[in-house]
């Protein structure tokens, strides 16, 4: 209701030149631009950054790619919280609405089914390739997970029967697989070395690969379920959601 009123107000105000709020905003933006411009002009030509520090620690990190080393070894807790944010997003969407039942009358053309049959295996293959490549080149859990999620979206768009028949408990397990593995590894590291996410010597490479794989599965499922747009119909835990 409020948003409708707001849009109507905006459409009425469109022909007025500027109101005071817009002027204030314009002023703030101009101030910000001037500030950024001054900073940019006084910027030193070459900043040392943290590249040298990362490069000197690279050997201990267990991976060859500096980006993955920073994400999962030197600043592992940051990535842990990011994965948690994605899980929270799904929980939020599921608590808001149920997944809509598609009322599509036209049937799916065979061309689309052909595309799904051809592309889905390639998508899964490329997702695995990107996760594996994350240890030495560009790639990693987020990129691989996004491709995996794209495969899920492709299957959801094509409205296959078996994709609706997947038990919800399995989806829930898949969703928490990545975060749980991450937290489990962190606790294991805490137990062994006495420091959160400080991997024991020699095992860093394997642990990072384990975390990346499980997180990629969870991220992919998260994105596909966000596309689904709500709690699946046959959920066992029936609350009072409309």
């Amino acid at each position, binding site marked *: 209701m409020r948003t409708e009123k707001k849009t109507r107000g905006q459409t009425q105000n469109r022909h007025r030149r500027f109101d005071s709020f817009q002027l204030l905003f314009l002023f703030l933006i101009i101030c910000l631009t001037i500030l950024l411009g001054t900073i940019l002009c006084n910027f030193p030509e070459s900043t040392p950054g943290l590249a040298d520090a990362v490069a000197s620690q690279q050997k201990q990190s267990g991976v060859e790619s500096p980006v993955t080393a920073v994400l999962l070894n030197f600043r592992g807790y940051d990535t842990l919280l990011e994965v948690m944010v994605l899980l929270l997003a799904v929980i939020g969407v599921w608590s808001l609405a149920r997944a809509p039942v598609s009322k599509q009358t036209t049937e799916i053309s065979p061309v*689309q089914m052909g595309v799904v049959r051809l592309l889905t295996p390639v998508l899964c293959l490329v997702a695995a390739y990107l996760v594996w*490549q994350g240890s030495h080149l*560009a790639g990693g859990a987020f990129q691989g997970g996004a*491709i995996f999620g794209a495969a899920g979206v*492709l299957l959801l*768009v*094509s409205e296959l029967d078996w994709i609706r028949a997947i038990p919800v408990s399995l989806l829930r397990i898949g969703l928490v697989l990545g975060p749980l593995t991450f937290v489990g590894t962190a606790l294991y590291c805490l137990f062994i070395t006495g420091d959160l996410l400080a991997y024991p010597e020699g095992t860093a490479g394997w642990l990072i690969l384990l975390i990346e794989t499980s997180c990629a599965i969870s991220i992919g499922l998260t994105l596909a379920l966000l596309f689904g747009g709500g709690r699946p119909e046959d959920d066992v835990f029936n609350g009072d959601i409309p």
Partner: protein
Amino acid sequence: MLFALILLPNITVGIFRILKGSTAADRMMTAQLFGTCGVAILLLLSAGMGNPVLIDIALVFALLAALATLTFIRRTWE
């Protein structure tokens, strides 16, 4: 390098079709042309900058090119 430079204005000019686009399908088609142009630019840049990783990005573009159009056909345009 030079070739990639020629392809980029292609995209810039194509935006006019999105803004004008008489039907929704026209806008979607333009987005798809942008995707293909992006793939070509990435391939040319990968040869020019000597960075083989860019081919992987082009691969991701090519894989996800169909996704938006399929969703558009099944979900939006009715």
